[in-house]
């Protein structure tokens, strides 16, 4: 109840500028801290929370067209392995429903759909091997043409329209039409009902969210009981030697690449700074546990450059 009141008040204050002064005062009285005047970090800068959201939006609006190219260039293609690892850990079965938040260009969504389809084929082959040869009717029923009820589906939610547009273009060019939906939404205020999704992923997106705990709470809300939360994010490198190399690479090479390929130094400067400001593996695990996830564990990939956190809603 309090949460809905808070969000309603926040929405009103956002919509009507004149109103907001009054509401901000009442905000102080009801809740600890003045929401709009609290400061947070934008990379190494300190900005107000509202400013951070719009600045982050602008960053991704600028980089949207070149996002995938830059990912390949900056990570030397390794980001594909990280995302494949996420899918492997996720191990989705046919019929699973995934919500991919901050999923902009759709990398995780496409991989999910491919994985699920290959799982389906695998199951069918196994059924054939065991002598349970399905009739042609059964086979055609199981194929996702036009969608039956227990159909795997992925909803890609992102706060940035430009990223989603790029994602949709990629879907069109790959010929992926069914099982994929696109929604513009805020990770801190998801436009979905409770207990909707089997899986929730946020890959390289959560460090851009202004209130991480709010995003985690929303994730818990929309997951079905037994649902899994998976988060891929840049984290603290464990090996000190690798850490030095990684720092040099991040601050000397990546913004230059950003300038050369995408024509945007500042956005990539923000990107590498925001990685440094993000909590490390253990801290994020603590955040997840505080939000109510169980069996929280993390896997370090590439020596801690990227951490894959997983938690369940039980």
């Amino acid at each position: 109840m309090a949460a809905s009141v808070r969000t309603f008040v926040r929405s009103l204050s956002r919509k009507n500028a004149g109103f907001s002064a009054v509401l901000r005062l009442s905000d102080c009285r009801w809740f600890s801290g003045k929401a709009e005047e609290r400061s947070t970090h934008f990379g190494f800068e300190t900005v107000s929370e509202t400013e951070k959201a719009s600045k982050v939006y602008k960053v991704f609006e600028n980089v949207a067209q070149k996002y995938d190219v830059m990912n390949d260039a900056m990570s030397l293609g390794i980001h594909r392995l990280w995302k494949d690892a996420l899918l492997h850990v996720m191990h989705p079965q046919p019929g699973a429903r995934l919500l991919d938040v901050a999923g902009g260009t759709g990398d995780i969504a496409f991989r999910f759909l491919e994985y699920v389809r290959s799982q389906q084929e695998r199951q069918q082959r196994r059924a054939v091997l065991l002598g349970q040869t399905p009739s042609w009717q059964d086979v055609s029923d199981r194929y996702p043409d036009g969608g039956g009820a227990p159909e795997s589906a992925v909803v890609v939610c992102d706060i940035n329209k430009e990223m989603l547009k790029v994602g949709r273009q990629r879907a069109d060019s790959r010929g992926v039409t069914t099982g994929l939906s696109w929604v513009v939404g805020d990770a801190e205020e998801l436009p979905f009902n409770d207990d909707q999704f089997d899986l929730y992923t946020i890959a390289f997106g959560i460090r851009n969210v202004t209130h991480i705990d709010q995003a985690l709470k929303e994730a818990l809300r929309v997951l079905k009981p037994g649902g899994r939360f998976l988060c891929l994010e840049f984290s603290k490198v464990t090996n000190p030697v690798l850490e030095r190399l990684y720092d040099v690479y991040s601050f000397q090479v990546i913004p230059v690449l950003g300038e050369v390929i995408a024509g945007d130094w500042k956005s990539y400067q923000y990107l590498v700074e925001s990685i440094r400001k993000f909590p490390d593996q253990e801290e994020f695990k603590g955040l997840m546990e505080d939000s109510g996830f169980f069996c929280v564990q993390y896997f370090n990939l590439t020596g801690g450059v990227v951490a894959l956190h997983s938690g369940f809603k039980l």
Partner: protein
Amino acid sequence: MFKDVLVRFALGTARVYRHVSRSPWQQTPAASRVTVRSFTAVKDEVPPPFDSSLLEILVCPLSKKPLRYNPDTNELINEELGIAYPIIDGIPNMIPQDARLIGKDEPQTPAQ
């Protein structure tokens, strides 16, 4: 399919409308940006079947109540709070700041 694309480029929007009369989906050129979407046979209209499947999952991010799809203005409406979320290019925009406030002019029968 590519012939359609070339034809579309060559003849512009007039061709779009003529093409639409053959297609089963209605054309609502609300914010028609013809630029990037030309590689699909279907343009920026919202095909109703697609939207209705999303409608089952989507709720208002503020009140978490279900929404009503308004095909004329191509919006998702939350009557209780009096806000309408636009659907641009077939993608519903569920950010409260981008939603439009609608006045309580038409007295609807209460949903509850």
